[in-house]
């Protein structure tokens, strides 16, 4: 039996408890938004994807069966799927643009600025194939364990490790100028 720290809140949300909905939202929204932002690289679209995921939560909470899967795993899976849907709806031109490597030659002063640094990391993440990006988001930024991340992505742990290794290799090469 899985011990789920969200089980009680989800049950209350299912009964229409607004305070529980607010608590659940505050607990998960920052991580979900960060995940969607890194997946989509577009703050407006990321908010829309998160809103779709929460709408799914609000309508399905009453039917949630505790003990079958961890709630957070389900919620991340919904969020990632909403991001995949949006990525697939994007025109090809945008996907090509996303796959373009950013100019890796900023001056050393710019490297010292956090904003500029974050921008370059975001661009490097954005250029990764979507499944590699999702694996990095879950294991590195969301701090999911390997089994949980594989479950969220509906793949085996071996497949997850392969995605992570390829993603990290690409990032290492694209961000090498930041580490010199």
């Amino acid at each position, binding site marked *: 039996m899985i011990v789920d720290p969200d089980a009680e809140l989800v049950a209350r*949300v299912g009964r*229409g408890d*607004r305070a529980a*909905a*607010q608590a659940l*939202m*505050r607990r998960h*929204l*920052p*991580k979900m*938004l*960060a995940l969607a*932002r*890194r997946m989509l690289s577009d*703050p407006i679209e*990321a*908010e829309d994807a*998160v*809103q779709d995921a*929460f*709408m799914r939560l*609000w*309508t399905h909470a*009453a039917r949630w069966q505790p003990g079958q899967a961890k709630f957070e795993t389900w919620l991340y899976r919904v969020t990632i799927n909403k991001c995949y849907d949006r990525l697939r709806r994007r025109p090809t031109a945008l996907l090509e643009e996303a796959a373009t490597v950013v100019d890796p030659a900023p001056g050393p002063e710019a490297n010292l600025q*956090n904003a500029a*640094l*974050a921008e370059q*990391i*975001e661009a490097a*993440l954005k250029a990764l194939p979507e499944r590699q990006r999702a694996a*990095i988001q879950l*294991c*590195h*930024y969301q*701090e999911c*364990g*390997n*089994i949980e991340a594989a479950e969220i992505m509906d793949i*085996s*742990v*071996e497949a*997850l*490790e*392969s995605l*992570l*290794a390829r993603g*990290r*290799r690409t*990032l*290492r090469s694209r*961000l090498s100028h*930041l*580490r010199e």
Partner: protein
Amino acid sequence: MRRDSSAEMTQSRFAAIVDAYGGDPARWPPDEREAAERWLASSSAAQAQVLEALDLDRTLAAQVAPDVSSALERRLMDGFDRARQRRSLGEFYAAAADALWPGAPAWQPAFVLGMALAVGLCIAVFAPLDIPQPDESAGSVFALDSVPDAGQGI
């Protein structure tokens, strides 16, 4: 699939773990962490690999999580209110159906009500109505009678 936690760590497996999960042991698979940490302590090549991986970890950590706007929070809670309203309406219909036909699935009373309505409409449209029409002469008698002292002045 979980790996066998009792399996010995090998150089290639250690390299695969660090390649995938980075240099922070906290991110390594829990069932292999202990063996991997032992390997790390005993191998200078492993230590060099971890240092290199930590370098990328630190770079990636520079990207901070975005702030959550209060406008987004409001939108999400508005969504909750709408969903709750829809659910209440659904529950109202379900309760009404249960009162009409206790224990039956919701579609049964809905089906019976729908059929009753359809039959009623068919009767109204197609069945001949045999309503007796009032007699015209009786009407005129009534009309004459209803005028007080109509002919008395003639």
